[in-house]
């Protein structure tokens, strides 16, 4: 049982590191953001393993959910800006 848990921990840690690396290095930003959200969910799993259910809840809701939504909406805004390709504006307070 102990060995199984240790193995699970090791796999989880490696998956976390791998996901972080892939999320940052993914050539496609959308894919990067999706991988980052997955990374957040895996983080929540790690919090559960470390007996931190409060943090797991917060991570799933804030770290992964809301941050993911923020990232996706910023990405969509960025794509819209790119598509519309407006002339650089000097001032829009």
């Amino acid at each position, binding site marked *: 049982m102990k060995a199984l848990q240790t193995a699970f921990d090791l796999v989880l840690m490696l998956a976390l590191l791998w996901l972080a690396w892939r999320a940052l290095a993914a050539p496609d930003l959308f894919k990067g953001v999706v991988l980052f959200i997955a990374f957040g969910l895996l983080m929540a799993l790690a919090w559960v393993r470390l007996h931190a259910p409060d943090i797991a809840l917060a991570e799933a809701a804030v770290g992964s959910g809301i941050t993911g939504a923020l990232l996706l909406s910023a990405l969509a805004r960025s794509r819209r800006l790119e598509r519309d390709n407006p002339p*650089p504006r*000097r*001032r*829009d*307070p």
Partner: protein
Amino acid sequence: MTFLETAPWMIWTVLLPLCAGICTFLFQRAAPWLGVAAALGNALAVAALAAQVLRGGSLRYPVGGWGVPLGIDLRADGLSTLMLAMSAVIGVAVSVYAARYFSDEDAEDDLEAQRHKRAYFWPLWMFLLAGLNGLFLSADIFHLYVTLELLGFSAVSLAALAGQRAALVAAMRYLLVSLLGSLCFLFGVALLYAAYATVDVTTLAGLAKAGPITWTALGLMTGGLLMKSAVFPLHFWLPPAHANAPAPVSALLSALVVKASFYILLRLWFELFRGVVTLPAANFLGLLGAAAILWGSFQALRVRRLKLLVAYSTVAQLGYLCLLFPLAQNAGVAFTAWSGCIYFMLAHACAKAAMFLAAGNMAHAAGHDRIAGLDGITQALPLSVTAFMLAGISLIGLPPSGGFIAKWMLLKAAIASGQWGWALLMLAGSLLAAGYVMRVLRHAFTQVDKALPLHRVPRTMEWTAAGLAVLAVLLGLMAARPLALLRIGAPVADAAVAAVEGGPR
């Protein structure tokens, strides 16, 4: 009377700006009034606190009544009180200036942009003040992280307030640097907690022993804070961020915000990690400071824009602060160097805020801030140019200014301990500062027949700049009281005391 003596004034220096932040956000029309009133109220609270500290020595306040290690302690000793006083004084002057600067009739561009800036300047500045005061009072390194973020967010938003391309880019860079710096600091906090199970500065100072954990924590935290204090070569973000902000914001950022992270650095190096730091590490910081003085001054001699010149001068002046690290390693002169460094911060805060406000006036009048285009501005703005000159006197370090006293103490420490290299460097830095101040004054005093097309500059804006500049000079004549305050709870022992005890180093 007893109320004045016993009330927890330090709490109010945080709560009052927070409440003002809420109110200026909700009641935008009254914001300038509320902001100035809050700055004045804060100054009164700080004065009452200073009286308490002068009378009764350092104060500690356990928030929530828990006390360390479970709770968060606030602490007001001489150093934190002086820093609070610095923010309070600059805060009042800049608030008065800003109330006018952001008013409708002094709009530099369209009215809507001006109203936008006014609507957001006040709450952001109030939160900045709360962050500053909270930071100076915190004796808890995790709480320091929270205040650093409060400070960083408001500083970045203020830097972006002008809204033009250069300001947005500079603010973005500033935000990234600020977040990276905070994260490095936070990792250091985590390491220290992991090793010692407390985040209280005083407790940690008693526990911290040299070893891989403290070395790594010291390195990470120092790196993060050097980044936030824009110490060479991590200064790259500062000149554009400070030069492209509205004048009152530039004054706040240059005079106060960079000092806050440097203040934490002082707490770490001379208190928390005092048994961990080594002479080579201190000398390394000194070398960074030397490079900052030279590089910042050369850039200030080169750039064509006035506000950029003043911003590069900040990079150079921050270098002097770093000279404290090597100078204070000699126990005999440590306290002299310590006093010199702190006094340098005070003098620089006044002089630099005055200089940015004066530069803002010149830019407001001329409609641009190209130095070459300021010929003859003295004819229109004699008071602002005088303010710039007086502030320059303090930056150069000419007697009887505050800058002179500060440099004198640093020089005394360098010479008394035989560290001639640092002494020569300081003299060279003064010459360079004279060079870049003269660059501006030469143009300003050039007589021209045809006056520039000038905008009117309100008298309030001229007088606040002049007031701060006069204060920068006066600091040289009334150094006794601040230095007495600084002695209270100082982490660096007085030379006489150190000689008796043999000194920690």
